[in-house]
């Protein structure tokens, strides 16, 4: 119950910013349904996995604003509540909430006939992997860089690199994505999904360790 209350206050604190994620997803769904053309479907699905992933980082990163960017964040750090929950726990909760939205999004696409049985599974797997990776990456960045702005900027930069394939080799390792133009081999998809989950867990654990030992050292020390 107390965790739920904390979550509600965290969400309230985001204000209108909280709605950015569902609104963006809604726009993406509308666009996808409007251009329901088989020749562009793969491209749209590709867009989904590229756009939807970074959106997963938004809630996670924004929920740390009071801890990292506000001067008074020090007071939060003096409370006895588990920092593992505030770090790792909240990240997992926000990513899970986001995944629910994504599954809803993909279900709508399925019902509206944009994707078929095989592509639906592939999309679920890929988008989940992307979302989990970006959520964890956002968490790691915000506690490492002590700045919401920098964390978001870096997530967007990586997403940009991902979308435009500027460094395709790096992309394969960092964003753990597969481009849909390649054949949707089930084994390959599962391999990438497991890989994404492992990398994400490493990032979450590393971020959590940083946050547990977090000191307010970026401020004027004396």
């Amino acid at each position, binding site marked *: 119950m107390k965790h739920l209350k904390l979550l509600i206050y965290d969400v309230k604190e985001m204000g209108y910013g909280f709605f950015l994620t569902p609104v963006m997803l809604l726009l993406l769904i509308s666009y996808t349904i409007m251009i329901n053309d088989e020749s562009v479907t793969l491209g749209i699905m590709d867009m989904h996995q590229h756009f939807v992933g970074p959106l997963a980082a938004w809630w996670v990163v924004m929920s740390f604003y009071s801890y990292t960017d506000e001067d008074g964040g020090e007071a939060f750090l003096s409370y006895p509540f588990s920092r593992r929950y505030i770090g790792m726990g909240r990240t997992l909760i926000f990513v899970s909430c986001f995944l629910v939205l994504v599954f809803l999004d993909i279900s709508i696409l399925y019902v509206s006939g944009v994707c078929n049985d095989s592509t639906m599974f592939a999309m679920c797997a890929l988008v989940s992997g992307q979302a989990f990776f970006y959520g964890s990456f956002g968490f790691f960045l915000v506690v490492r860089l002590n700045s919401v702005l920098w964390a978001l900027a870096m997530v967007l930069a990586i997403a940009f690199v991902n979308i435009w394939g500027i460094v395709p080799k790096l992309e394969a390792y960092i964003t753990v994505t597969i481009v849909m133009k390649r054949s949707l081999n089930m084994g390959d998809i599962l391999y990438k999904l497991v890989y994404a989950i492992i990398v994400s867990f490493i990032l979450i654990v590393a971020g959590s360790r940083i946050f547990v030992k977090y000191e307010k050292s970026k401020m004027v020390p*004396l």
Partner: protein
Amino acid sequence: MLKIDGVNKSFGKVKALAEIDAMWGNGVHGLLGENGAGKTTLLRIIATIMEPDSGNLSFDGTLWTDKIKARYMLGYLPQRFSMYRQIKVREALEHIGILKGVNENLAQEVDRVLEAVNLKDKCEKKVGTLSGGMVRRLGIAQALIGKPKIVLLDEPTAGLDPEERILFRTMIRELGKQCIVLLSTHIVEDVELTCDTVMILHKGRVITSGEIDYVRDAAKGRVWELCFLNDSDKSINHSWIVTQKKKEDGIEKIRILSEKSPCEEAICVAPSLEESYMWLIDEGERHEAFKTINL
């Protein structure tokens, strides 16, 4: 008793705290020092948000190595306090209550602290709409939630108007009857009017500590008063440390800090805490300079 034993902290080559020892019981205790003296660093170490390089802290047998246990005993108001802005005052305090582990009667506890800081009528307002003074009061309220045994206040009166400052002092004095209150400030008047004891820090070292009267006496026999009928500026020797200058009935009175009488007309007067503080800081500087020369 809060016990601090040989605490050291450095930031690179800068020694922020050097061998700090202290023991505080219930009451209001002031930490006085200029900007950069190490007051905030010491409070942050006690607040468990900064690790000392060496030294121990404990309260009634609980060591600060067990941070979670220590945090249950603490209430901390940082120098710059801010809070979730989009939520209401009551919600903000409930949120903090949960984070501070108040599991039972949270609503009553929130009411209690709201009343203590006189914010009950503002409890349905959003935090972002509060004035600076009210945010400071909210800061005190969040520090008081969960009835902490140690309350750390880092410059709580900074930026407040005179009326708010008086209210704060009364509030802090009341608080000192129930728990240990550590008040960090560079406003000597705040310490003089609220604290039972004071510790003066200078460049990370404790220059002196003790009851207010004891520290005030540090400059006894070193404060001199001079009266001038005309403009005193022409008569003031520039080597004097002038602590006060005021005009009464056409006579200009100045107070000087000096080891010996600056002139025949000077009368030795009782020092204020501010003058003793200045004297001790000056003495500390001279001591530092002496040490450097001897190196």
